[in-house]
């Protein structure tokens, strides 16, 4: 591994500023005013020429959002100034399926983030969202021929309205929670994926979410349907410029994994530390299906996200692998949920959190076994690593079991990087920063080893960035 010494700016490696934290001039097709209203919802719906039912769904969701109180648990969301946010920015008039067709600034952004390069090397399809819209989208032809649909959500609604109408807002109801209601009212972009029965998409599909404007609110909406016996691995990444004022990212992701199918959803969340990241992710797994969430949270000011799996069919299996890294000024309230409602279902939740420089990282999880889900098995392991005395780790493992024939395990550990470990590594020539980064990389290895090589390398690099200049 290559490690470099750099200074830290506000809890982010200064590399962040160069690699991700840049912003480019705004030359947009449409930018809404600040704030949220029914007029705004109409404007969004009109821009997208949506069917009436979606427009109604949006208005009703806004009512729910306005009516619901802010959550008082998790992190501090009371400081979000909802009236100061731009809820909809349409950067270009049309989506491109060639990078060359994008405006120079936007194309340049994707080049800097390495997306076209990654597409060539190891991706089966790419969606690139800039502000509110997916500005670039492409799927390999052979997958198109097999009937795989990989579109942005707006195109999905336009081109496959029946399918969307059948599933949209069904896994996560519009009034599920305040931020799901917000997303449901102003959603834009995100991915729509359908994998036909038996089709295995061998290489990952990737979506990349980029915020550029200050005080931006990004509300992508993703719906993934994996039909019987099919397989797909979806990867999402995200970054934003560093601003002194807040931005908001609030996504909703709904996944349906049908009988015998498997879906893996990998997130490498690397927002700048002025972004509130409040996301609702939920999957349902039918008979003998497998759902896996691999959730890496490195950036953002506050993240509240607990990928959930409802095990609806007999023998369904769910896994959540979660890494949360909280540096200075960051609060990662991450975790996972598994709800067993069918017999012989199994789940594994593995959470690794790291806190440093006064950061706060926590595990918040729910394990529920309904009556009748006999033979259910679940294992929850959450490990926390504290890098200094100022940092904080919390564990909130909610467990509700209404069935007696179950096998449930729960383990939690909190550890600190030991002086002896550091000394041992430093006695081999590693600097203190390199030594700490190595201990942290080792700590999260059970999760990074599950990532495709390119993402494991990226994850380790990001962890090293987080570690730099922060120790001692």
């Amino acid at each position, binding site marked *: *591994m*290559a*490690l*470099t010494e750099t200074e830290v700016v506000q809890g982010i490696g200064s590399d962040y500023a160069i690699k991700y934290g840049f912003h480019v001039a705004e030359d947009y097709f449409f930018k809404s005013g600040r704030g949220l209203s029914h007029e705004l919802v109409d404007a969004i719906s009109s821009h997208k020429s949506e069917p009436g039912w979606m427009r109604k769904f949006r208005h009703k969701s806004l009512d729910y959002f306005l009516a619901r109180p802010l959550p008082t648990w998790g992190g501090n969301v009371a400081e979000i100034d909802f009236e100061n946010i731009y809820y909809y920015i349409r950067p270009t008039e049309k989506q491109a399926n060639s990078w060359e067709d994008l405006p120079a600034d936007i194309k340049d952004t994707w080049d800097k983030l390495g997306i076209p390069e990654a597409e060539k090397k190891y991706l089966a399809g790419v969606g690139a969202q800039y502000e509110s819209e997916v500005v670039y989208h492409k799927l390999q032809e052979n997958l198109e021929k097999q009937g795989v649909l990989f579109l942005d959500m707006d195109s999905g609604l336009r081109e496959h309205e029946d399918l969307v109408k059948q599933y949209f807002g069904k896994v996560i109801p519009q009034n599920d929670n305040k931020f799901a209601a917000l997303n449901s009212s102003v959603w834009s972009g995100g991915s729509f994926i359908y994998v036909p029965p038996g089709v295995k998409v061998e290489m990952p599909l990737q979506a990349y979410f980029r915020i550029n404007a200050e005080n931006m609110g990004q509300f992508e909406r993703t719906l993934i349907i994996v039909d019987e016996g099919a397989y797909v691995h979806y990867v999402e990444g995200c970054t934003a410029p560093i601003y002194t004022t807040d931005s908001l990212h609030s996504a909703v992701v709904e996944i349906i994994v049908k009988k015998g199918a498997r879906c893996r959803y990998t997130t490498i969340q690397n927002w700048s530390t002025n972004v509130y990241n409040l996301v609702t992710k939920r999957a349902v797994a039918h008979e003998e299906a497998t759902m896996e969430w691999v959730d890496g949270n490195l950036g953002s000011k506050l993240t509240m996200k607990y990928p959930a799996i409802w095990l609806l069919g007999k023998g369904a299996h769910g896994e959540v692998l979660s890494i949360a890294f909280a540096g200075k000024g960051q609060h990662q309230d991450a975790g996972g949920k598994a709800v067993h409602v069918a017999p012989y279902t199994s789940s594994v939740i593995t959470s690794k959190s790291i806190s440093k420089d006064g950061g706060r990282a926590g595990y918040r999880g729910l394990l529920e076994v309904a009556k009748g889900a006999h033979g259910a098995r679940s294992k929850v392991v959450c490990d926390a690593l504290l890098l200094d005395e100022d940092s904080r780790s919390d564990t909130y493992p909610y467990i509700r079991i209404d069935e007696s024939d179950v096998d449930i395990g729960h383990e939690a550990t909190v550890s600190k990087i*030991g*002086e*002896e*470990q550091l*000394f*041992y*590594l*430093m*006695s*081999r*020539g*590693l*600097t*203190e920063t*390199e*030594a700490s980064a*190595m*201990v942290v*990389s*080792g*700590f*999260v*290895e*059970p999760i990074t080893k599950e990532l495709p090589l390119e993402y494991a390398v990226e994850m380790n690099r990001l962890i090293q960035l987080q570690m730099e200049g922060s120790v001692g």
Partner: protein
Amino acid sequence: MALLELDDLHVALEDGTEIVKGVDLAVDTNEVHAVMGPNGSGKSTLAYALMGHPGYKITHGQILFDGEDVTEMQADERAQRGLFLAFQYPQAIPGVTVASFLRSAINAIRKARAGGEDDPIPVPEFRKGLMSAMDDLKVPRELAQRYINDGFSGGEKKRVEILQMAMLQPRVAVLDETDSGLDIDALKIVARGVQRSVGPEMGALVITHYQRILNYITPDHVHVFVGGRIVEEGGPELAHRLEAEGYEAFAPVGVGGES
């Protein structure tokens, strides 16, 4: 001037208790020095202080390495200059394989020697060197992909310490009770590994309680260390005298017991 020189070295714990009470020692390449002492004499404290453990304070005297005063340097800077410590109790780093650990350590040292520029060892060269060093030390190859010291037996840990020494190619290696916990076959292998490295490029300081490792690594100089001081010095015959007479003969009043 010798490569490593200790000049009237005094070492205290953080609470101020003085453990090492004035040690003079000079170790050069091509030499094997044995520091022999009973439990509680301060041997390990001396080893830790040499390597720069932050929990041990050098209260007086200095450590010179290749003529440079390294007394105030951190462990990594000392390692980058060519000092190595084989630990009595090596630390486990879960999730980090022996191979990736070694490669990172080699690259950290190469980077320091290249003036801070990355100068990574080519992977084929690293792999070849690792395999050959593992074979020499009879370390099973599968160990390269296991997490370092995590669940290793006592003997595996000690062998991997010497494997690290062979790979990092220090100029002075300090071996802290490397013989403890080894059966006779493992001891022979480890001792041979050390003996192979000693030469124009490396000298060794073998810290031990017992004479038996010295049956396989012949010391040029033996220093008897009791109560935080070197109380007697001589050639290899001194080790045999110790074995016959015990430390009692050398012990100042009130020190040298078990602790």
